């Protein structure tokens, strides 16, 4: 076939180099969301938590074999390394090559599965067909039972998107840029509508499939790991508030599993792209992820974290601390009484520690020492909580005071710096009188062996 002709002489090593290099700006390299036991006859299983197999020198996890099928592209998106006006080496895998690589890497436990994206070659439908053929081979001929994540190409035939959905665990359509205007400026060949159509289609089909699965347990699963998307942060002038609102509506209206943010890395020189003297906006990306977690697991709304008057995240404080110091009227929170949803709002208390607090306080009142054992980050939490009606230290419930303490390392109250008590100790309030002795201690006292 014609499209294979250029790649024929190139070695597999060169192709892998070019096509993983081209895929590295795609985020969403997770392998979570699906629990599938091995079937005893072919290679592969999936774990709901996902598995990270390695970490590259930028600290991001390598979980899937993240490659493009081809980096030939008919589009000219200004931010993209593979745009058609760039003079970069081009390569195209054959479906067999992708399959062999995946299988050989997988059985050596290098990877958790395949992440397949592609430049648009000839037309979106043609490209999607190539992806479909590859995935079909991998599932049916190579009988691969591990994780597969495929990008849906906007504008491809709906029938193809649906057929591929039954073969893969996760699908994603790249939103590319947070707003339609940004997309018009930087990706002239892509349209917001084309991106949202397959997203909606996948959403509807997942819903339908869930109902099917209730009726027929063995019905084929459609995109079992849910749908994801990603957008570039910092290439266009949107503020954090806009981006967060977009993410929120994607979660609410499109029922996405994840939205990924990728700090813009300038790979092309173009007059419509911003200059980034300080490197990619990594802190901004980090704050967005923090806020994203607050939306999904902590019951926050985008409008609570930011608003039109303060459209950007605080650089010094994380979004939760920032929210807390602006809502001091809701604090301090009593650890032994507060409901789970309220516990989640305390800085330094995460989903796990909130759950543990709720479980542990059934057997008795919790103290600050217990909280530390449970895993609460006391250096952040102490300004906002009480245990049995007392704060740990005499702190002021003032915005300035708390912000100063949270941000500067020097002024911060160190946990346990004063023997962890809020009052002068005397002989008679030694707590160990009240507690039942451990067997080792009894024995040690009786025989004088310490």
């Amino acid at each position, binding site marked *: 076939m014609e499209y294979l002709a250029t790649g024929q002489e190139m070695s597999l090593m060169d192709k*892998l180099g070019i096509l993983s290099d081209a895929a590295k700006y795609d985020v969403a390299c997770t392998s979570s969301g699906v629990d599938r036991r091995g079937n005893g006859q072919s290679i592969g299983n999936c774990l709901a938590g996902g598995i990270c197999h390695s970490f590259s*020198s930028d600290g991001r996890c390598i979980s899937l074999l993240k490659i493009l099928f081809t980096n030939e592209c008919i589009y000219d998106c200004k931010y993209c390394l593979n745009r058609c006006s760039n003079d970069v080496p081009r390569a195209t895998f054959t479906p067999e090559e992708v399959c062999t690589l995946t299988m050989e890497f997988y059985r050596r436990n290098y990877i958790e599965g395949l992440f397949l994206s592609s430049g648009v070659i000839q037309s979106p439908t043609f490209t999607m067909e190539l992806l479909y053929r590859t995935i079909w081979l991998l599932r049916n001929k190579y009988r691969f039972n591990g994780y597969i994540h495929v990008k849906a190409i906007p504008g491809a035939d709906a029938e193809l998107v649906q057929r591929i959905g039954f073969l893969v665990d996760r699908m994603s359509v790249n939103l590319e840029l947070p707003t339609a205007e940004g997309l018009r400026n930087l990706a002239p060949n892509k349209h917001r509508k084309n991106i949202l159509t397959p997203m909606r289609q996948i959403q509807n089909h997942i819903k339908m499939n869930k109902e099917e699965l209730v009726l027929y347990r063995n019905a084929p699963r459609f995109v079992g790991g849910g749908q994801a998307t990603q957008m570039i942060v910092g290439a266009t002038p949107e503020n954090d508030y806009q981006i967060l609102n977009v993410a929120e509506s994607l979660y609410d209206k499109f029922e996405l599993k994840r939205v990924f943010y990728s700090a813009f890395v300038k790979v092309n020189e173009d007059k419509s792209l911003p200059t980034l003297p300080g490197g990619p906006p990594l802190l901004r990306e980090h704050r967005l992820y923090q806020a994203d977690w607050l939306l999904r697991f902590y019951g926050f709304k985008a409008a609570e974290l930011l608003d039109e008057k303060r459209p950007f995240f605080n650089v010094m404080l994380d979004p939760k601390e920032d929210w807390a110091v602006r809502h001091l009227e809701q604090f301090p929170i009593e650890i032994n009484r507060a409901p789970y949803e309220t516990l989640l709002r305390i800085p330094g208390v995460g989903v796990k520690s909130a759950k543990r607090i709720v479980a542990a306080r059934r057997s008795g009142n919790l103290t600050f020492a217990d909280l530390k054992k449970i895993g609460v980050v006391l250096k952040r939490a102490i300004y906002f909580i009480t245990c049995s009606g007392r704060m740990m230290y005499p702190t002021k419930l003032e915005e300035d005071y708390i912000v100063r303490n949270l941000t500067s390392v020097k002024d911060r109250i160190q946990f346990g710096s004063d023997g962890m008590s809020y009052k002068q100790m005397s002989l008679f309030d030694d707590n160990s009188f009240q507690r039942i002795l451990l067997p080792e201690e009894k024995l040690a006292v009786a025989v004088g062996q310490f």
Partner: protein
Amino acid sequence: MLVFQCEDSLEGIFTGIYNAYEQKSRPEDTMMSLNEELFLFAEYQTVRPDAEKTLKVIRTLQNRFGEEDYHHICLALSTPEPMKAQAVYQTVSLGLRYSGAVKGHLFDNLANDYVNKAFTLGRTAGNENCHMRGFVRFQELESGILYSKISPKNNLLTFLMEHFADRLPVENFVLHDEGRGLFGVHPAGKQWYLLSGAEVCTEADRFRLSERELHYQELFRYFCHKIAIKDRENLKLQRNMLPLRFREYMVEFNKQLNIG
């Protein structure tokens, strides 16, 4: 006080727990010990591991506390910590006394020192288990067998074998715990088993890699190199996520093999 001296194994400790219950000894005056250290005025019993008693304890734990908490106990017992037997025993005895019939609440009372200890141990081992699942690297030998050396801090071989047997049922593979001299062997399509012994160890060094093995190692190393974004380089983060102690056995960090 009654001290049960157990062997450092799942079977040993579970039998100890069984004996303690059989003799109706009070948990406050009972200790599970793994070492030979003696206390004055304490009564000692040496526990001989017993398969039947172990199974009974396992069944009780699973029925009362559920699969997940039982798994957590097993993880806690895979650590090298000498306190683990006592912590698990006290946790279980507390759980049997208070937790009623609701499953999944064994480790609720984290304010209790024993429960906390058992929980922390289980979590430590569980974290390493997660790491090892990802960081194990198989090498293909001439005979087509996949072989991997590991040396985790905790004794995770059984957990890893279970995972990989489910994942690679059609492969012949061997996991070699170098530090403990243990082998997990999985013949294709059959039940896996454990082996120990020095003879196998010396033989292991004579294995030769298959021809294409180095090619795929080089491919993966190249992939790991290419997938990193230069502008975002962050070696400290990489070290946090993938501590140096794991890298010894991972092909992408192995500098000596540079063929390609």
